């Protein structure tokens, strides 16, 4: 306290170097360390759990934060005794295809709503926004009838077709912001030079909007990778499940929780999206700003 009062009383140049370093620790480094411990500890806990033998898992007489005799048995049973590899394949297929469908639809819709003047454009924009009012929680029961009618239970198509209902509104909304930030004159001059509107869109607007499309694609991929409710309801066969559903259901038998496999599965299911974001975190932030500030 005394230091803080003293430094405020003086001119900035007079503050002893030690005090300034101390101030930076208090204001920046220590809070950042706390932030990192809070956000990362559960992942550390998953990791140590996966290497503990059953006896060590349930022994809290010694510090549970470290592993004393690491074992790979949980990892082995995750990859060889469960359907985890199959769930990974399912999740990947669903995420990629539903992202592709959603990007296709929302690039077209976003361009149309951001650029073209036609009757009902405003209403359509509102309509797409209003779909936020109808989250999966509200739709999953009636959707079971639709999916049954189409004979799509335990079929990846059930997820591939339903995920776009929440991906398209999000992507469209984000892309409208992006398209609006591209000057109209660019495509108008392309059209004066003889390009049709579709050509101008394909050759001028879409290349310029590529960062936005990439962000939208990342969002969509992550949202479908992480989706739980529809997959829980529509996929009952073990081989048809996605990672979130398979891991939460098949390593729990009654009251027995197989924490080693559970945590190994949880960690493996998190790695792809975590990697994706660590490479594109700046892209992600700029996508967020385009959507939030301009949208």
């Amino acid at each position, binding site marked *: 306290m005394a230091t803080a009062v003293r430094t405020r009383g003086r001119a900035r140049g007079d503050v002893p170097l030690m005090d300034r370093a101390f101030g930076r620790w208090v204001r920046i480094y220590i809070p950042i360390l706390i932030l990192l411990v809070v956000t990362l500890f559960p992942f550390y806990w998953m990791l140590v759990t996966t290497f503990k033998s059953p006896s060590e898992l349930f022994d809290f007489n010694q510090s549970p934060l470290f592993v004393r005799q690491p074992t790979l048995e949980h990892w082995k049973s995750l990859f060889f005794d469960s359907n985890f590899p199959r769930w990974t394949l399912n999740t990947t297929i669903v995420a990629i295809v539903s992202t592709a*469908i959603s990007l296709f639809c929302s690039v077209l*819709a976003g361009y149309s709503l951001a650029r073209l003047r036609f009757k009902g454009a405003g209403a359509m924009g509102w309509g797409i926004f209003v779909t936020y009012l109808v989250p999966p*929680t509200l739709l999953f029961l009636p959707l079971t009838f*639709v999916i049954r009618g189409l004979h799509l239970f335990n079929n990846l198509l059930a997820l591939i077709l339903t995920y776009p209902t929440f991906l398209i509104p999000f992507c469209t909304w984000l892309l409208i912001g992006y398209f609006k930030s591209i000057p109209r004159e660019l495509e108008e001059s392309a059209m004066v030079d003889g390009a049709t509107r579709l050509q101008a869109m394909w050759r001028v607007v879409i290349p310029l909007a590529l960062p936005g499309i990439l962000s939208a694609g990342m969002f969509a991929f992550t949202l479908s990778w992480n989706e739980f409710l529809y997959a829980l309801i529509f996929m009952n066969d073990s081989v048809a499940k996605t990672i979130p559903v398979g891991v939460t259901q098949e390593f729990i038998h009654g009251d027995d929780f197989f924490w080693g496999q559970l945590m190994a599965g*949880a960690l493996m299911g998190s790695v792809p999206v975590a990697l994706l974001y660590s490479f594109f975190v700046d892209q992600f932030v700029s996508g967020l700003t385009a959507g939030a500030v301009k949208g």
Partner: protein
Amino acid sequence: MATLTERSTPSVRSQGLHRRLLDSERGLGYALLVPTVLILVVFLAYPFVFGLWLSLSSAELTNAGRFIGLANFKFEFTVDRPFLQALSNTFLYTGVTTVFKLGLGMGMALLLNQAFPFQRFVRAAALLPWIIPTVLSTLAWKWMFDPTFSVVNWAAVHLHLVGYPGPNWFGSTGTALAALMIVNTWRGFPFYGVSILAGLQTIPQDLYEAARVDGASRFNQFTHITLPMLRPVLLVVLLLSTILTFADFQVPFVLTNGAPFNSTHVLATWAYQWGVPGGAIGLGAAVSVVLFPLLAILVAATLIVVRRPD
């Protein structure tokens, strides 16, 4: 080269071009919306309307039932105790976590807006809880709150914060709800933080310089420059986050699934409980339909504030 000669008669050409554009603009505008509208009608609008009908019916797992008027709603609001509890839990869960997510997110954004080493790493690491599949991180928390082997309790006991053995998190309604809120806040605040950070970085620095010249304190700079400039970002983030929290299924389903004694359900998990394991699709649909007017009020309120003319 060719374009130059073409441009040499601008008045005639551009007039024709404009008319052609306007003519085709309408057709193209509709055509580009076709795929989106198709998907949204079949898998969103139709199920929504069908869900409204289901809520007024006696539908069960395999048969579509018949029209029974408002009987499902009457049952929910007068007989079904866990429903009323779920309704109030949903409000409490959304309200409390939103306050904490907003506060922690603001703190995180102000912190990360300063200059420090390994910025990219810190930002990516802090965002991690929001990115990875919610049910998977919730599983880790379930293990951390385990009745007998809770590492949270182990740490709290060793730091002498609580006496041995510490709270039985899922043993009473209060602590179970607290656990739900902790996990939801942990998962959600990084999104607030990163969005607000993005908003902070769009504020022109000269505003602060001008304020400093005029002698404004740090606190006054925050309330008179930072907060007003953040308004659009804050409202979008709040809107999205409140809707998603209000309709949250994943955290409550995996962490407590109502335990103890159906006292920690939220609307989403209670609708699932009736509709899927219970097989009473009509009742389940009625529970989830209750979400709709509540969400609509929430969104309308936010929009009224967003659209306030500047």
